[in-house]
């Protein structure tokens, strides 16, 4: 972004033809003022990304918004406000900004390459006119020797020494801006060649890294299903500890981890991995993270005909993270003669509270389930997609018996005979589930390198000053003059120290040569 800003460059050309217009457009685009405006626009354009739910961050919240206020949501969606950071208008801003950056960095790079090969300019006639100057003892030869020893670039002439330092400032500046370009490319490449998948696994169950095994799978456009790393694992155990009673933070998790038996490839030896929040599992460049957990009570359900129609764990969605009171939905299409469905409320640490029952703690100290049974047609053959966590859409289900707000809960090992001879439900045990996210992003390491380079470049460009000093012979000594083009620094201090050092160096040389 060009430092020398001339008002005239912004004037509209008259009859310059297409080439002239292009040149004018390029000049405007690469001017510092345009870059500034684009920076403001970029900041401003990001704001809605924090005000509206984003599909990439919380798709559930977007879905809720769409059902709660469909008219407004439709308009928001039309302007990409649920996908701000993928929106064409957002891309337009940052692409223009980066184009402006390229148009500014390239010419500056050329100038800089020329500059660093140039010798420092000759000394001005009157050094006393410079903002920093001093008359000191000494001679040119010792000044030159001292400056060279301190790694200044030195040039000499008739009666003067000229020295320059601080080209690293511009080097850093260019490095920073180029690093940002690399970062953008790395992020883009990660999006194209990487993938992300989410899955819920119950204790005792396994997972193998295939597209079909994921509950949600988001591949980059250049990823094919065969590219997935062939690892697999079994969830052996999950354990969580919580802050005990009597503390303000009662029920807050202290630590949780999942024990996995991992195979990096089919036939490879098994290894044990303890998966924790900040410690993902790595397999062949793909990382698997522990992102959530909950309870999966196990049930045995018998139909009206006396045959077992369902047996196994039912993952329940956590309603309240402080108590892990969870909501369960059980669909039993195999029950005969009528299909069965259940709504359940799982309470890990149950206590009675008047007519109701509550959970008071997230740990499974006294686990129970409250059950609301239904029978009828689940409509699974109709072909319309439905959520396994929701009974809401079923029109043809009829409650079995009296529906109460808080039915008496069942403890582990207990069973309930359903009314109307519809069958039986037994609460057989409690397992836990975890949700995992697997990410493969080949851009992450290049992005890290680019970020590191950006910081280095920033430090150089903000902390180093480009400065020049000249030494001119005068009667009985030398005059030193200094100049910096960088504002706001402490060059006065550095200059004072430098003149002192020059003087000392000259005196020491005089002593050495009697």
């Amino acid at each position, binding site marked *: *972004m060009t*430092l020398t*800003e001339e008002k005239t460059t912004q004037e509209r050309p008259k009859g310059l033809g297409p080439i002239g217009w292009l040149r004018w457009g390029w000049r405007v685009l690469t001017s*510092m003022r345009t*870059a*500034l405006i684009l*920076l*403001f626009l*970029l*900041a401003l354009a*990001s*704001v809605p*990304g*924090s005000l509206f*739910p*984003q599909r*990439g*961050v*919380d798709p559930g*919240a977007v879905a809720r918004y769409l059902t709660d206020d469909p008219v407004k949501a439709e308009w928001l969606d039309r302007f990409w406000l649920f996908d*701000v*950071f993928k929106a064409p208008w957002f891309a337009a801003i940052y692409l223009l900004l980066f184009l402006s950056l390229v148009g500014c960095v390239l010419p500056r790079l050329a100038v800089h390459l020329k500059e660093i090969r140039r010798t420092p300019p000759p000394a001005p006639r009157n050094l006393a006119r410079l*903002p920093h100057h001093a008359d000191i003892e000494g001679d040119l030869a010792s000044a030159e020797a001292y400056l060279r020893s301190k790694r200044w670039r030195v040039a000499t002439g008739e009666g003067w020494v000229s020295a320059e330092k601080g080209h690293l400032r511009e080097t850093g500046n260019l490095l920073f801006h180029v690093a940002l370009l690399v970062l953008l490319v790395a*992020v883009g490449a990660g999006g194209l060649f990487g993938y992300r998948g*989410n899955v819920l696994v119950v204790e005792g169950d396994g997972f193998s890294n295939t597209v079909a095994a994921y509950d949600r799978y988001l591949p980059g456009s250049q990823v094919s299903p065969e590219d997935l790393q062939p690892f697999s694992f079994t969830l052996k155990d999950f354990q969580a500890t919580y*802050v005990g009673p009597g*503390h*303000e933070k009662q029920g*807050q*998790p*202290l*630590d*949780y981890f999942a024990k996995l038996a991992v195979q990096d490839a089919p036939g490879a030896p098994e290894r044990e991995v303890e998966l*924790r*929040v*900040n*410690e*993902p599992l790595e397999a062949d460049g793909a990382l698997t*993270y522990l*992102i*959530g957990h909950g309870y999966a009570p196990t049930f045995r359900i018998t139909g009206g005909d006396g045959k077992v129609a369902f047996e196994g764990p039912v993952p329940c969605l956590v309603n309240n*993270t402080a108590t892990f009171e969870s909501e369960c939905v059980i669909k039993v299409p195999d029950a005969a003669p009528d299909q069965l469905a259940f709504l359940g409320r799982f309470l890990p640490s149950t206590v009675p509270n008047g007519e109701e029952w509550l959970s008071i703690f997230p740990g499974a100290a006294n686990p129970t389930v409250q059950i609301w049974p239904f029978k009828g047609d689940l409509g699974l053959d109709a072909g319309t997609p439905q959520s396994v966590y929701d009974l809401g859409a079923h029109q043809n289900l009829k409650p079995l018996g009296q529906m109460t707000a808080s039915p008496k809960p069942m403890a582990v090992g207990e069973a309930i005979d359903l009314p109307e001879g519809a069958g039986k439900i037994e609460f057989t045990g409690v397992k836990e589930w975890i949700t995992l*996210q*697997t*990410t493969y992003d080949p851009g*992450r390491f290049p*992005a*890290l390198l680019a*970020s*590191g380079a*950006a*910081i280095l470049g*920033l430090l150089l460009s*903000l902390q180093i000053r480009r400065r020049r000093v000249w030494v001119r012979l005068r009667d009985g000594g030398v005059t030193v003059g200094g100049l910096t083009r960088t504002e*706001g*620094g*402490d*060059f*006065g*201090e550095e200059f004072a120290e430098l003149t002192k050092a020059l003087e000392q160096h000259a005196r020491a040389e005089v002593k050495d040569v009697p």
Partner: protein
Amino acid sequence: MSPDRLATLSDQLVLAAILLYLAAMVGYALELAFGRVTETVRERKLVSVGGPAEEVPEAAAPEPASWAPKAGLAGTVALWLGWAANVGGTLTRGLAVDRWPWGNMYEFVVAMLLAAVTVFLFLQVRYPVRFLGAFVAVVAAIGLGFAVRVLYTQAGPVVPALDSYWVAIHVSAAIAASGLFIVGGVAAALFLVRKEGPSRLPARADLERVAHRVIVIAFPIWTFAVISGALWADKAWGRYWGWDPKEVWAFITWVAYAAYLHARATAGWKGKAAMIVSLIAFACLMFNLVGVNIFIGGMHSYADVSK
């Protein structure tokens, strides 16, 4: 000492810090109010720059009170004592909970104001910036008061996601950068409040220089804080950047401060316009701290990892 005793001591030390900061503010303010009018006291400049200083007729400046510098000195002493209490408060909190003492918003704000006061005291040792004392002290006192009244959280453990060595790296960097930005923000705000010409308030050139100096140091630290946050997110959440509201506002803040640095190097933007940009950036920083946690955080709790 038992953790409970330490936690209580920490709370008391933070209260003491508030009172001492208020005392410091009074001392500094007395010096400003009854001391010399600036623009005539050019020796207060941080460094010499080219160009003649604006001369103000001697008659415009009333005779300063002889005790005014003493009030300023008393303010400095009170600020150092308050700083010590603030350090003590943060240290004892850390000992009480046996982790880094910036695991929640209350602790973060206390540490951030400690950083701001530290920055100011450090500047004051090296440069004549006493003129800013009253304003830094009042910001620190109000900020700590806000932390104690609104944000207070009982000492205790943090959720597993925050139980990581990344707290030491990422959050410490954010605290250091925020402390520097606060001093820059105070200087920039004063710059706008103060008009050109003689005034009881410090000279505009001095304020501009202090603001620029701290922002230039803070910006790379803030950049590092954002990057280390991305590294932590990569460890904890399976992506290094996910446009979570906190990340969005950290990005906006970064872009806004970058705009300030560019504005300062652009013709027609130097001086007042650049200072306004730096204040906008500072407002973004504060919104990220307070606004995102309180207003937006309700929808997407930052520390809540589950999606």
